[in-house]
């Protein structure tokens, strides 16, 4: 992983008390990340989120109880965001905890093995469940 992980391997445990299921979180989508498929394929809906957005060992998100979407938009003009609740992610098999290095963040890992990148099915499922905002 290019960015130093927030939580070292071996210390990634689900925290259902500190991070409640109803908490909404946002994952920013780097506008440089994607080719504009919608110019050529009407199936490539503008509301679709690519699984590549979520396919990383440590999935960092911003927590809605610490920052607003409006503030995120100010910080990252032109970006879109994938929105989901922690409970939705847990239902797919993620574990979630606060980022000890960044108070605004909740980080998610594969519950199957939080110390490894997720199997492809997990980010794929999250990409279909998350909402583009």
């Amino acid at each position, binding site marked *: 992983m290019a960015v130093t992980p927030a939580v070292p391997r071996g210390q990634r445990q689900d925290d259902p008390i500190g991070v409640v299921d109803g908490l909404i979180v946002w994952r920013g989508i780097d506008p440089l990340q994607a*080719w504009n*498929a919608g110019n050529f394929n009407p199936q490539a809906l503008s509301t*679709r989120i*690519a699984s590549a957005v979520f*396919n*990383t060992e440590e999935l960092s998100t911003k927590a809605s109880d610490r920052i607003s979407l409006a503030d995120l938009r100010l910080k990252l003009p032109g970006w879109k965001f994938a929105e989901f609740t922690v409970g939705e992610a847990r239902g797919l098999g993620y574990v979630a905890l606060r980022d000890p290095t960044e108070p605004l963040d909740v980080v998610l890992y594969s519950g199957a093995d939080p110390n490894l990148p997720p199997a*492809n099915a997990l980010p794929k499922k999250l990409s279909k469940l998350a909402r583009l905002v």
Partner: protein
Amino acid sequence: MKAERSLSSWRASAVDWIHNAVEQMPDTPSTSWHVAQPTLDARRAALEVLREESVPDDLVPIAMNVTHDRGVLIEWQNGDKELDLEILADGELEASKWRGTDLVEELPLQKSYWRLRPLFEWLASSK
């Protein structure tokens, strides 16, 4: 010598994106939300896939993204079936076939581009 064939519009656009747009990406992403530039091996392999004759012109990808592991992920869809080709940072390929969110099959391709044809035949078929 094999003649260079002209590319369909989506392929030409996708090739141009690999050639030019990814140049704007940083080598080191500033945050975990930013992506880094794909490796040269990944870019070369992505260009080979995009120029590969067994990739049909009439099945336009629904997405092509740089991955957080410095590779490229190309996704095709036909009804509830999806085919993903992930080009890894070392230029190797992995294919995965999906029905909805159910994984049907996952297989490494090891630059065996000839094995792409049956994948697209599966995607295009009504079964």
